[in-house]
């Protein structure tokens, strides 16, 4: 744990939620309203909030809350700091090892059931015992307690002073159409370590959704992990039959697709606005932190309170922000013109007050005032962000990377020279690995000589401690030696995966989010809606479909006045660009697909995806990089 955590509330969303720290961030609502959702997601958020409050109230009196650092962001989506205070939480800490000093007599731990964290809690308690401090301990596991953690507390002999409980938080609404379990390492655990816990959590979360929104009549799945989830759903249906409602379903279809079906997409660079924000700045729990020197001028202009010049601006990214929601799904090249248009509109609006307005006009003007002001702030923020992104994407380094990606995906041309140069320039390892894995996936592996070569190059350049990362990638089939027939060309052809003909401003197909590449995952989803769809194993994995009979009378057919609703569950993670493409699909004229709601184990991009697989052996030495000496010629 970082020393900053000791004695100080964490800077995570849960703690920061009460007070957005920048005027720009204060402009839009920091959390999605969920009012635009096709199913009642606010019900889910309410339920999660209620359960958390109940849990806090079950512990009498004032208390301190000690959090799993990884829960801070997700919890921030559910509850605000002020509400925690109302329910007796005096302070929030992160779980730390060894001694934990607090004046409070009552400590509430809220953690994922991870052994490492349970160990820390045991250490805290043992320390208090040795110091003769008597305190009340409550440990709540999210979403449930596990035998391992409970056994660990028992083995440390602290279970008799601890009250244990569960906080069944699973899918958290991140937007009107996005839900996430926020399990960081689900792909790694499931496919590398053979620990299928996350699949069980996925199945359980679907059962919970069915309990709220009715039995989903149709389940389509694609991929081996999806098959396991579907099988579990079948069993759980029998187990929990009596808990399922017999109301007519709000969701018409569940489509489960796992990351193994399409490993290519997350490795490519996303070119939608939201995708690029994620690639360049990194989006964490629907917020992005922007350097003040990028956005600072914006904040300074407004007559807000003085801002710490070193503090990053936290910008909420959700559909509650009308400006952002019109931009997020577009290819970045459309963002500039749209922002300009917006700026003109806002300008026009402000100019109106110089006209002599009649009273009804004035009333109309005032009615729009607050909203326009908010849009103004938001568009100023996004203009600053977009300008920075523009700088990045016009940089030759970025362009050569894109060129390399297109070469690979479109023509299977070798990009070995480019990768080698990246290594020689000591570019970030994760970038090199993204390109290497892509090469391997597109070519069904690397030639023996190159395989050997790259592995040695990486170890010699980035250090021996990455050797297990390479081994992990190999085991997962992301970076392997060539063997057997390469199937990618036929997949590319059959699924029309690449086309040079991209219309970025008025797209005709889903290839605008990745410069000509149409993600395999989305193609698979599109295909599942086609009439000729059949049960089979193809190059991308097995697929099947089952129907679930509804409880009660069979005449409770879905309400025909609304669009069909499909819940797409990406097991192992989904990128923002993929979500954007699903939104685009359902916005098309003569919409074949109805509405989509996306659920996933984790919102990812190529970097976070690969980082979850990387193995960092200690001691990690800092790579020696000659730094500019600062001396001028």
């Amino acid at each position, binding site marked *: 744990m970082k020393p900053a955590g000791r004695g100080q509330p964490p800077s995570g969303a849960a703690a920061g939620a009460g007070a957005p720290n920048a005027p720009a961030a204060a402009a839009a609502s920091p959390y999605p309203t969920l009012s635009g959702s096709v199913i009642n997601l606010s019900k889910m958020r309410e339920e999660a909030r209620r359960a958390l409050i109940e849990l806090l109230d079950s512990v009498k009196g004032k208390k301190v809350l000690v959090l799993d650092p990884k829960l801070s962001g997700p919890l921030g989506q559910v509850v605000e700091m002020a509400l925690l205070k109302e329910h007796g939480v005096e302070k929030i800490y992160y779980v730390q090892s060894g001694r934990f000093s607090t004046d409070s007599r009552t400590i509430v731990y809220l953690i994922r059931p*991870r*052994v*490492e964290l349970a160990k820390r809690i045991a250490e805290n308690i043992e320390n208090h015992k040795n110091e003769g401090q008597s305190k009340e301990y409550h440990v709540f596991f999210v979403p*449930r307690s*596990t*035998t*391992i953690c409970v*056994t660990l507390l028992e083995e440390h002999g602290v279970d008799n002073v601890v009250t244990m409980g569960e906080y069944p938080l699973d899918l958290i609404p991140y937007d009107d159409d996005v839900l996430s379990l926020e399990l960081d390492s689900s792909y790694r*655990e499931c496919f590398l*370590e*053979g*620990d*299928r*816990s996350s*699949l*069980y959590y996925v*199945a359980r979360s679907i059962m919970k959704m069915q309990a709220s929104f009715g039995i989903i009549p149709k389940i389509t799945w694609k991929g081996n992990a999806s098959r*396991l989830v579907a*099988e*579990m759903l079948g*069993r759980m249906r*029998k*187990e929990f*039959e*009596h808990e399922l409602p017999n109301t007519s379903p709000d969701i018409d279809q569940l489509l489960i697709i796992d990351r193994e079906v399409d490993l290519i997409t997350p490795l490519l660079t996303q070119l939608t606005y939201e995708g690029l924000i994620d690639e360049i700045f990194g989006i964490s729990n629907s917020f992005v932190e922007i350097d003040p020197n990028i956005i600072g001028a914006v904040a300074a202009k407004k007559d807000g309170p003085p801002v710490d010049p070193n503090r990053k601006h936290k910008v909420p990214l959700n559909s509650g922000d009308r400006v952002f929601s019109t931009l997020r799904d577009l290819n970045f090249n459309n963002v500039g013109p749209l922002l300009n248009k917006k700026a003109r509109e806002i300008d026009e609006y402000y100019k109106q007050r110089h006209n002599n307005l009649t009273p009804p006009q004035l009333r109309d003007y005032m009615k729009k005032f607050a909203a326009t002001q908010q849009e103004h702030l938001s568009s100023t923020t996004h203009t600053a962000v977009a300008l920075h992104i523009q700088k990045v994407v*016009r940089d*030759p380094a970025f362009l050569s990377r894109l060129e390399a990606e297109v070469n690979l995906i479109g023509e299977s041309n070798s990009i070995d020279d480019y990768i*080698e140069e990246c*290594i*020689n*320039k*000591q570019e970030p390892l994760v970038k090199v690995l993204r390109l290497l894995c892509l090469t391997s996936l597109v070519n069904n592996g690397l030639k023996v000589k190159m395989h*050997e070569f790259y*592995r*040695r*190059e990486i*170890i*010699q*350049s*980035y*250090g*021996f*401690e990455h*050797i*297990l990362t390479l*081994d992990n990638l190999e085991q997962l089939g992301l970076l392997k030696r060539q063997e057997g027939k390469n199937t990618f060309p036929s997949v590319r052809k059959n699924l029309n995966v690449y086309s040079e003909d991209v219309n970025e401003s008025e797209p005709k197909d889903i290839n605008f989010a990745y410069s000509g590449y149409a993600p395999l995952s989305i193609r698979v989803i599109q295909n599942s809606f086609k009439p000729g769809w059949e049960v089979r194993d193809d190059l991308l994995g097995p697929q099947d479909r089952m129907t679930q009979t509804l409880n009660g009378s069979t005449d409770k057919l879905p309400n025909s006045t609304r669009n069909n609703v499909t819940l797409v569950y990406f097991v192992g993670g989904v990128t923002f660009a993929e979500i954007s493409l699903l939104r685009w699909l359902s916005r098309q004229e003569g919409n074949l697909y109805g509405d989509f709601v996306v659920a996933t184990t984790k919102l990812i991009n190529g970097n976070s995806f690969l980082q979850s697989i990387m193995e960092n*052996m*200690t*001691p990690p*030495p800092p*790579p*020696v990089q*000659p*730094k*500019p*000496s600062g*001396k*001028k*010629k």
Partner: protein
Amino acid sequence: MSLNPSSDWIEIQPGCFYQRREPYNMEWGAVNPSKFRLVAASYGGLLALTREDRKIVKASGAETDLRPRIDIYTQAGKRISYIVWNKTKIAGMGWTDDEKLIIVEATGTVYVYSLRGKEELQFSLGQMARDSGVMEAKIWGTGLVAITNNYDILVINYFQNLTVQNGKAPEPPKARLYPNPSLAEPPVAWAVIDPQYTQSLNAEVIIATRTTVYTVDVADVQDQMTGTYGTFLVIVPSPNGKYVACFTEGGSLIIFPSDFSKKKTEFSTEYKMPPEQMAWCGGDSIICYWAKLKAILVIRVASGDIAKPYVSQYEQPLFLSSECDGIRIITPDRSEFIQKVPDSNESIFSIGSTSPPAMLYDASYLFERKNPKADEMIRSIRDMEFAVEECLRAAANETSPYLQEPLLTASAYGKTFLDSTFDSTKFTDMCKTIRILNAINDNSVGMPITFVQYEQLGLPNIINRLVERHQHLLALRISQYAGLKQEKVLVHWACAKVVGSTASPDEVLHSIVDKLKNSPGVSYAEIASIAHLNGNTDLATRLLDYEPRAAEQVPLLVSMHQEDTALIKAINSGDTDLVYSVVLSIKRKCRSAAEFLQSLKAKPVALQLLMSYCKQQGDLALLRDIQIELNRIPEAGNTTLIQAYKEPELKKRIDTLEESFGILARNKDTFMAKAVEDQIKLLHLQKDFEATIGGEYVDGSVSDTITKLILAGQNAKASKMQKDFKVPDKRFWWLKIRALAATSDWNSLDKFSREKKPPIGYEPFVEVCLEFKSREEAVRYVPKVASPAKRAMYYATLGMLEEGVEAAKLTKDPNIFQQMKTHFSSNNRAKEVLDQLTEQFAR
């Protein structure tokens, strides 16, 4: 006139009416209750009878079994079961609220029997009770008090759970020792106030000695100083715990509040002998019984002074049992219930009543007979809602359908005059309740219960009582009818079947599965646990197969020592936590690691989890042992690598790496082994460099090391590294020129660029110069760059328009001029020039 029950009312005091409820005729063939010790469960519950030691009975000759026995009957005198009592003296006997029979033996052992006469649990009250023996014990709905022969008071306030759950025997309750009032002789009388009615929620024990009364609480003893009233021979607390009725040696009946603060009322019975039985009838009157008088005295104490008691003759011996709203009187051939007429019924049926419900009742009667007066009457009712609700209540209070019907009709009639704010479910719910009451009040069920008792006990408890009595069908129908969950009833039925049936396991299984197949929420695991406890493991296993919830199935299988099956079920469920729980319990059972692994060998999912568990726990040694045992050599090698990198000391790290090399060398793919070998070599070299050159080398990569060597001017060593580690020329050149640029060693960089034609071209030279901020040096290398496009862009970056344009012209590509423009954003002339050129080349 309408049907009126008031003619059967007894006016025990002017204006105060009592009634007898329809009695049961006892089926027990003239058992004389006076010859027995008899205890009755509250709420019309069961009776338990045993022969009193001190009461002599003539052997009838017909009975051959003379061993002491405890018989269990319903209120209708139907025998359900019996217990053969082959133990020592009984110190106390009583029923709990859920109809478990508690028997306290004089030795201090407590026995818990089901109503079927099966011993379910026994436990001791502790050493004190064992040592001195229990003199007497009293049992109430949730607990017991025992007084030892040393006058120590032992209390169990709440039994909690006395039944087997999920195959686990209940935790025996522990008795608490109350403070001792230092008695010198046995108490004259004593009683217990139910903990639910005391302030501390602990039972209070009231003990009468010759001179005073003590109230003993969990915390202290309080002397109530009642000496002036004389010795109390009988003490009986009221059913609601508010009052205590005391019979004095002078023949007076005195009522105190239960804290003895102030005498409430006193009445002289004029009998010196204490009554054989004294009991409360509800909360407002006392009934005393003297066998000699062949009569009971009903003494109403609710309001102020006690006037004349009411006397009722009983030729036969009888037994009294209090209820919250009345009293049961059990005689050899009848069981009847006496209560004060409920207020609703009194206000409707008392002669000449003009209360709204009475008016409604009469109006409804007239309406039924098409009498127009009904209308007038209806209009005169001011509070119709009250009238409707009272008629409903009155209907529920009556036992006879002949009276229920007109009352319900009246209520329904009145309801039509109410607006929509009236909650009609009140009416339908009450009708349901009445039907249920009628069903369980039936002779064949023998659960005579009033509406008030029904509400206090609650339907779920009533259903529990029914299933315990094996009235499963009725219980099921009532659950269905009332919309309650039926699973519990079904499971109980199945459990009873498992225990009681003499059929073959096959038949039992089939009959159970057949009955339960349409009830998805049923817990087969619970049924199986009963079968297991009953010693029928085979049936248990087969029943468990029907349990859809793995989380229920698996723990039971583990406790049945069927870990293998448990593991398979756990794995199939996909619930990894269940798998862990089985794996850990197997681990606990196995004597050696090898045995443990052997038992998991065929279960890859479990093994995988075990390994992930080791990783999480940081138990790498065990992890490696497992991997080696399973012949997963590469993985074992990797684990050793992780171990090596946990070693802070270099020497140990190298040793562990050697070990890892040893393991990995067995592998087909030689890459890993080779990499480890190289790393060992590198670490040795780095150690040497640190010793000979100085600085930090250890743990850097090969590239880092070469860079450092160049920075330290150790070019020869750097070149040797290149050769030894087969570093490609390209990378070596990059490393070298960056290192030189970083130290601004421009001369060496220049020299190096001339050594031979760079394998990486000249672009990197330009780039490193730019990176390390030397435009001058950069300019030197631009002309050598092969690609004219790149040359053009570099010149543009350096602000050299003319040179750039020259290079760009060679490309003949109009786009290049536009790209160059971005570097001249503040130079309008340059922009113009570039735009012109773009146009020129575009043509």
